[in-house]
């Protein structure tokens, strides 16, 4: 359960980032770190395996493109299945988050 949730959370963060448009792995870490104001730092050791797993599950697809600084980089983007997955994950996360907050009595 814990494992599944952590993984789901990472997936959700990746998918959400990619929903803004195709990006490479490094871009994903930077985006998450910036947007979360440095609160969330993605381990590279988890990011790439996750990206590759998502690609295998056909939730994201990848292609080699030239990055902003002129280097070849592997860009990931959401597939239609990915968009659906993102919606599912978002709703799940919202309800989970609401539930947890209620339990903790924070809200």
């Amino acid at each position: 359960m814990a494992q599944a949730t952590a993984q789901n959370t990472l997936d959700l963060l990746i998918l959400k980032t990619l929903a803004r448009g195709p990006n490479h792995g490094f871009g994903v870490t930077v985006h998450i770190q910036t947007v979360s104001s440095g609160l969330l730092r993605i381990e590279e050791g988890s990011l790439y395996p996750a990206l590759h797993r998502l690609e295998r599950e056909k939730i994201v697809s990848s292609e080699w493109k030239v990055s902003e600084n002129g280097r070849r980089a592997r860009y990931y983007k959401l597939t239609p299945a990915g968009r659906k997955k993102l919606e599912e994950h978002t709703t799940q996360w919202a309800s989970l988050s609401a539930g947890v907050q209620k339990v903790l009595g924070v809200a």
Partner: protein
Amino acid sequence: MNQWWARLRGRDLDRELREEMQFHLEMRAAGYQQDGMTPRDSQAAAHKSFGSTSIIHEDARRMHIGAAASLLETAGREVALAFRSLRRAPAFTVVSILALALGLGGAAAVFSVVDRILFRGLPYGNRDRLVSVGVRAPLADHAFLLGGDYSEWKAERAALDGLTATTDAFDCDLNEANPVRLTCAGVASTFLPLFGVDPILGRNFRPEEDLPKAGAAVILSNAVWRERYGGDPQIAGHRVQLNGEPALIVGVLPASFEFPTLAQVDLLVPLQLDEAVERKRQAVSMVNAFGRLRPGCSMARAGAALQPFYENFLATITPSFRKEVRLEITPLNDLMRRHARTAGWALLGAIVAVLLIAWSNIANLWLARAASRARETAIRAALGAGKMRLLINRGAELGLVAAFGWLGGLSLAAGLLATFRKTAPAGIVGLRHASIDLRIFFFSGLVLVVSILAIALLPGAGAPRADSGGRIAGSRGMRLRNALVTAQLAISVLLLASAGLLLHTLRELGAVQFGVQTNGVATASAVLGNPRYHTIADRYAFVQQLQNGLRRLPGVTAVAVADELPPLTAGIGIMFGSLSADGRPPAPGAAGTVNLRHITPEYFRALGIPLMRGRTFIPADENSAPGSVILSDRLARRLFGTDDAVGHSIKPNGFPKTYNVIGVAADVKNAGLTAEDAPEIYFPYDNSRSAPRFVSAVVRGAHPAVLARLMADEIRAIDPTLPVVVGPYGDRIARLNQRARFNAALLSFFAGIGILLAALGVYGVLAFLVSLRMREIGVRMALGATRGRIAGWILSCVMRWTAAGLALGAAGAFAAARQFRSMLYGVGPADPWTIAFVVILLALTSALAAYVPARRAATLDPSATLRHE
């Protein structure tokens, strides 16, 4: 689909991953650099924050290709890794593969020959029940029957269910557009069926073709059929000119056929024995008889059953001859392998020795390598490489070396075998048919697997122990390696000593004094079997014409013709006991045979044989009555003691006239190179008695090689259909040495490999010792040991196990040489000089091999060595 593609292109996937990580790292480093870090620090920081790229790598891979395929992929990667690490150590790899290929190749080639000599059955359907049946007498080197006896012995039916006969192989001529001298053998029409051999084309001889005076028929050997008649499937029914007479080709023999005497036989012709005449002893032929035992009949029973027949034979011969003969029944298996058996075992021994040396060499290399890589192994293990993986890695390296070694070995074997076939003398059973077949393929594969497994199972070589770290290189491993080198040296001494004895034999054979000055003599021989030479007068005329022609050749100082030249005879002999001197009968019990040779007057001058008394023949001696003969010194002394033989007379039993002794010639070798000589009588080559069909002309002159060619032209001018063999006298002798030369060459080849491998072994172990003790040497030097002392210390390490190996080898050599005594001539099996020479040679070789590492140890810089760790 994508995954399959990715799996197929595993390397691309790797590259992509690496590139992706690289990009990430660079971006991260660029970020740090913007924050003010130096480029170097920023890179280090990026790496640090990234963590282990290899783990990501591994995870990503596992994800892409699934866990099941991962082991296969791991194995594949380890093989690639093994390949790379072998390539990084080219000397080690090449030596391993070379040692394996040499050992395995030699083993496979020799085994393919030895296999047929020692282990496979003869190429006959009824091989196990075939026996040679005959009488053994000093006249011939193998058992024979007289034609009349053969005819009578055929009646024996209790022990034998068939008796058949052949002649020895003899020269015969195919007189066609391109005349050629071939080897024929006469066989009874019962021969092929009794031996269980079926012609592959046509048929066997019919009984009526085997009758006296039936027309000539011929069965071709497979080789003649293929090479001379292009494998024509319609060949049966064609006619050829055999010895100038038309002969009908009736069949073709299978390729696997071997004549029972192992002579190379090109054509079989019907025996056509006139049994009625032979039984009355009006004509006496010698045949080789072969019988087939009834199922379950023992040799002893066969002997008992033939005893009455043998007694009948004894009754027909003179009492003095009776003592010298005995009945001999030999299984064909033993008979055919008799010659090659000793050589076969010697070869097998040699190849096992080479294999052992090669093996211990490889084992040693691997032990050293495993020890020197103990640290690498330990590190890999610490980094999480599983034991399985390390095993796979070692296995992959061994396997790769083994595969290359096998390939190299098999090609080497094929090459060696081709060389054997070209250089080997006749009389090695099955050699012409030996090939690298499936059996050899599996044999070499088995040897390979066993040797590789044996190496892998050596403590510390194959299976790495992750926990033992640097301890593998401890004293136990060193002792094992030293023992291996000791064994190598011992085996090398054994091999080299054996080769040395054979080379010694060869030299002795080459230096055999046969009483003839062979330098500057050219020879030509032909057989007058053609109907053109049917009468004695025809043959006499040919010889006269030939001599006249040869005298006209440029630079010729002497010309002679004889039926055969020393150290051989034409195979005609009489019993010493049948010779009466000065009219008195021979002393009772006189044993042995006397050779007869027919010569023309200049024979002694042409061959440089000294005439000790009297004179040589003159034309007046031809057809004179009483006749004239020249005796060999040995015979003269035996007949007349210290008296001058000239002026005495002799009469061989059954000869029509008495002969006056007109001269005595020095002894010559006349029973082959190694056999005991026989006394000899020279008759003039005249047209009174039987001018022999065999003609060997000798010409003494300045350029024997040129003369030989001119002789061939001269004979062709007289008779263009007569095949002739020409060459300097030396070539003739060389052919007699063929077997000894083959044995010596083969064993020397193996000994060469052995010594090379042994030297490599000594070098490898010492070099390893030095690299292992580098620190110790450094400490010793720092503490004041001189360079000389260090070198001495290293050399003393060699000395002990070298000395042990040499001593063991010398002892082994004494024992082994006793086993192949029959292959030696002029040297004893325990020849101290040969063994001493070999021991010194190998000691020097090991010293040379030890020199480089010892020197390296002595020139080490102690401070550098000590700082190294």
